[in-house]
């Protein structure tokens, strides 16, 4: 099962190496790992997607928490969260196919961020499943390049809010 783990870490050199090294040394698999600053310049947030059974993920969580510069660890499994992935994708788009492609982009609420004579660069964000679906629908036109951020996530405030 896929788990999204969020770790608040001290923003100092070596922390990423520490976390990455722990995953490698203990043979845990990382699906994606995203690091970014938070509102507090002293802290960064790492969002790590891990695949494994509950026992493995429990070890991952505990081993992460054990790393000295890791301040807080949360496993979002079973919790209502907003999870997002951002993708830049370049699609081969000859003029005669463009209307079709543009309507697809519309459906996925993507944005065209660069236009060339033969291709389009599109920005799409959303849950991982939506990103994967967009890649699938673009495949017939020819995908030139894909760059993805990996998942970032945050728990929802309350049950009253809408589902993503």
């Amino acid at each position, binding site marked *: 099962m896929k788990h999204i783990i969020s770790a608040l870490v001290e923003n100092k050199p*070596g922390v990423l190496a520490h976390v990455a090294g722990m995953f490698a040394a203990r043979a845990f698999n990382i699906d994606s790992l995203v690091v970014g600053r938070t509102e507090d310049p002293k802290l960064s947030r790492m969002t790590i997607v891990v695949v494994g059974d509950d026992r493995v993920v429990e070890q991952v969580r505990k*081993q992460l*928490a054990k790393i000295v510069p890791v301040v*807080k660890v949360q496993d979002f499994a079973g919790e209502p969260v907003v999870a997002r992935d951002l993708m830049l994708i370049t699609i081969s788009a000859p003029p005669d196919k463009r209307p079709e492609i543009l309507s697809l982009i519309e459906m996925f609420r993507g944005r065209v961020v660069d236009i060339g004579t033969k291709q389009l660069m599109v920005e799409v964000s959303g849950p991982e499943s939506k990103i994967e679906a967009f890649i699938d629908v673009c495949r017939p036109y020819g995908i030139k390049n894909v760059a993805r951020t990996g998942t970032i996530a945050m728990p929802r405030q309350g049950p009253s809010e809408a589902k993503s």
Partner: protein
Amino acid sequence: MFSRRFFGRVRPESIEYLTGAQIVVRTLLGLGVDTIFGYTGSALLPLFDEINSENWRYIMAKKSDEKKAGAEIIVDTLIEQGVETMFGYPGGVVLPLFDRLYDAPIEFIIPRHEQGGCHMADAYARASGKVGVVVATSGPGACNLTTGLATALMDSVPVVALTGQVRTELIGNDAFQEADTTGITRPVTKYNCIVKDIKDLARTIREAFYIASTSRPGPVLVDIPVDVQVARYESDGQVKMNLPGYRIRTKGHARQISAAAAAINKSEKPVLYVGGGIIIANASEELRALAQKAHLPVTMTLLGLGSFDQNRPESLDMLGMHGSAYANYAVQECDLLIAVGARFDDRVTGKVKGFAPNAKIVHIDIDPTSISKNVNVDIPVVGDAKYILTELVKEVEHRERAPWFKKIAEWKKKFPFSYDKNASVVKPQYVIEELCRQTKGEAIVTTGVGQNQMWAAQFFRFSRPRQFISSGGLGTMGYGLPAAIGAQVARPDATVIDIDGDHSFNMTMTELSTAVENKLPIKVCILNNGYMGMVRQWQELFYNKRYSKTYLANPDYAKVAEALGAVGITVEKAADVPGAIKKMLGQKRPCVVDFRVEREENVWPMVAAGKSLNEMDGLDIMESMA
């Protein structure tokens, strides 16, 4: 430049007698000087005295007294942390630090190799309960520490390693003796960091000692570039530590403790399985109280030896691959296993699936990652063993459990550790029994790794914590000799014996010079079978006696010892063992005894890899010799 002579009294034109210092100060005042930049020292004391009386004190204080060089901050912080002894090897980029150590009130032991220094600091910590400190230079010096750091990490030993690093502006340029020390040592330390700004220096060293010695202890490395050691910074007194991600859970959850107590009170066939955590937490007294009050048999891991008096009737001695048959049978048959400060290592559990198949498992440990890592735990309690056992003792009831103890007594009677006592050739087990007898079981024992280590664990009877010092988790051959040195430095009045194997001893025997130089009366007993004994045993049992590369030509160890300034003794007959040990124990100098033991003796019993604890080999051999 002022020499001391300058400060003698001279007779100036006026009637008033002035000291040289007064003349200097008055002349300066006369010239309108109001600020002096400088730094005090013993040869300048008369001058500074005069400057102070002229009310220039604040100027002097601000310009010199409060600023300290990085190296001075390091040494002052070490002293503040209570460091009395350290180990280490000098080199280019630690010269400023070593200059400060020249007249610092810290005992300094120089090993012959940084690995030895790290093991010494490690054993010093294990023998004393204090933090061991080791210093090394950049590049090769730091690299040589890694085996020692990994050893300390696996066995949860508080060690602080300080390493020099090339100048900050050279880092990453492949400078001479540069290595990515924090990168190399990250997986073998509890925490490490590089200090690139002198204002972080004192705080970082304080944090290093705190992290190394608290919660589950371990080695911490601080890498300090040489320019940070010479930079100057205002003394920062007691800057607070800043470790937002480091939390220690001492008190166990009260409900979990009660659940554990209830399980103990209900159990018909309980076993306490305890490890090094008891010794680290100084919880031996609490363990004894629990075992006595609730009436529980106690088995120990290799590192747990000494946590519970093996002479007590509740002791089942060591469990695991080469543990006692009675401990292994008891674990396999128990209905409740109470693990305290132990981590279900594969050498303890054998085949995990078949481990303690009928037991409910209570696990008390300060490290949450140890819980349910290898074996699923029914009642986890996270916290400090001393605290939790104290609480647990209050809640447990005394129960006789006569049938269970009767069964254990039968196993003990049927399968004691044994060997052929009638042999004329020296049996390694006999050497250890004799060492235990002549030292009344009081000696501190260090070991190499392999057969020597297992026999030491099986045949010496330990009664006190910090008495048995051995590389358990990492299994570092060569640990025994430097460990004996570190332990002897920590406990100068104790008898310290390294029970070693010939090939373990070969790895670090250069440290004998360190023992001789520092007049440390350590004893080294080499159980010399001419093989890498344990590897040979596996080749005999599992590789059809093909002794591939497990034999090396050894030197005459007695002669080596004599050449290095130690006492050397060779023993070839069983009858000579007691006399040689007596002679060894009487030595004031380091002493090496080369016991030429039975060459193909095996360690029994043995749980082969992949077998359950009750599937022991060698019981028939033991029975035939008992």
